[in-house]
């Protein structure tokens, strides 16, 4: 599918389910590489920020200078997709408890908003602009988007709540499309470049 010299998509791999995103991109036939250091941003076509622990990833942003390259990357208009912890890091405001974030997408997001792991669930949601069919959505200790800022489009909902949002080149989901075999969301992201 992709020409052999195509720029790979970067997958942030300091911690989290980066391998599941890699599995999905391989399935679709898109080249990828893991991003752990600032130098790894060179030449990537887009960036995926995976699920995992946002507090752990924040340490790497602050102490290894990984936050600024993400901001610069978004500033250049390059596409970024954050799932779960990735969405929390992209938000302008993260709560429960309040924590630092990159402020690249104007949403307020509440961490662990459904409860603990025993409250994790698989749901069916709608993404009308992306698919005619309901999409299987896996929520793991998931956050909830409590406020959607001006100009942020809600692309997907589950149980009435926004679960997939986009503004410009930044996309965020509170669920994990990488944990299913449904390629819809990743294919949509790949079209953003």
């Amino acid at each position, binding site marked *: 599918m992709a020409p052999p010299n195509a720029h790979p998509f970067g997958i942030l791999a300091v911690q989290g389910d980066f391998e599941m995103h890699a599995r999905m991109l391989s399935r679709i036939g898109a080249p990828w590489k893991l991003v752990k250091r600032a130098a790894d941003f060179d030449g990537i076509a887009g960036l995926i920020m995976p699920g*995992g622990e946002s*507090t752990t990833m924040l340490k790497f942003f602050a102490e290894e200078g990984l936050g600024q390259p993400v901001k610069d990357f978004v500033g250049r208009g390059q596409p970024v997709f954050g799932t779960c912890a990735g969405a929390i890091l992209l938000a302008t405001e993260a709560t429960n408890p309040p924590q630092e974030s990159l402020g690249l997408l104007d949403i307020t997001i509440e961490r662990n908003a459904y409860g603990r792991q025993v409250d994790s669930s*698989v749901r069916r949601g709608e993404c009308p602009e992306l698919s005619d069919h309901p999409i299987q959505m*896996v929520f793991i*200790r998931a956050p909830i988007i409590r406020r959607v800022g001006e100009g942020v489009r809600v692309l997907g909902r589950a149980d009435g709540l926004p679960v997939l949002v986009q503004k410009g080149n930044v996309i965020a989901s509170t669920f994990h499309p990488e944990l299913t075999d449904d390629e819809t969301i990743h294919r949509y992201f790949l079209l953003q470049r």
Partner: protein
Amino acid sequence: MWEYDEQMKLKVGLAEMLKGGVIMDVTNAEQAKIAEDAGACAVMALERVPADIRKEGGVARMASTKIIKEIMDAVSIPVMAKARIGHFAEAQVLEAIGADYIDESEVLTPADEEHHIHKWPFKAPFVCGARNLGEALRRIGEGAAMIRTKGEAGSGNIVEAVRHLRAITGEIRRLTTLREEEWMARAKELQAPYDLVQWVAENGKLPVPNFSAGGIATPADASLVMQLGAEACFVGSGIFKSSDPAKRAKAIVRATTHYNDPKIVAECSEELGEAMKGIDVAKLKPEELLQMRGW
């Protein structure tokens, strides 16, 4: 053919989220906070760290529910807790208070010497220790959603974790070279469920994440087990039995992420103070080996 249902997808899903991270043993809320601030991706609540269990003896049980709840209130990362092997009532209690993962652990005194917990009916996911592929597949057959090498907990000695990791990854590689008609004989030798043997032969890995535990005390130890195929690290006594827990915790977190970059692992190894003293596992009597608990 073995496959996940939706519940198993959620259980394995949380294990996926922990990959590349460090899960730290803690005995109170204060230690849990130190672990979270150092970048731990989860904490494991227990009554005493393995080194103290080994020293003090007596029956080691599930931690006090009061302390586990205090730990849950203190941190926003997942909180795991240990239950005794076969003690399904302890596991039910841990699920009831909202533990994010239950470790059916050989570090505690076994409650049942014949049977492990039937883990499928629980909503909370389980992690179990294993020394070889057969043991790993038996636990997965019972419903475990994550495997960790047993190593030798509380020893500060990486030798057993390495042995178990090499045993599991080596046996997986050998399994992928067999012809289909050889799978059943191999299942018989491994004493493992046939459908799981088939899954591993066809996929070349375990159907659930494989983490490492039992003896990790330094950043280089973390790098070693990650290079040998572990997908994340559990660190027990190695942190809070060292001279500067916060610093060592942070260094092990960083070394786990950058395990394949020796320059960064070298940076992580500087000025850490004293590591836990550790013991020569070869000098332990068979009855002192925690890894022999469970089958």
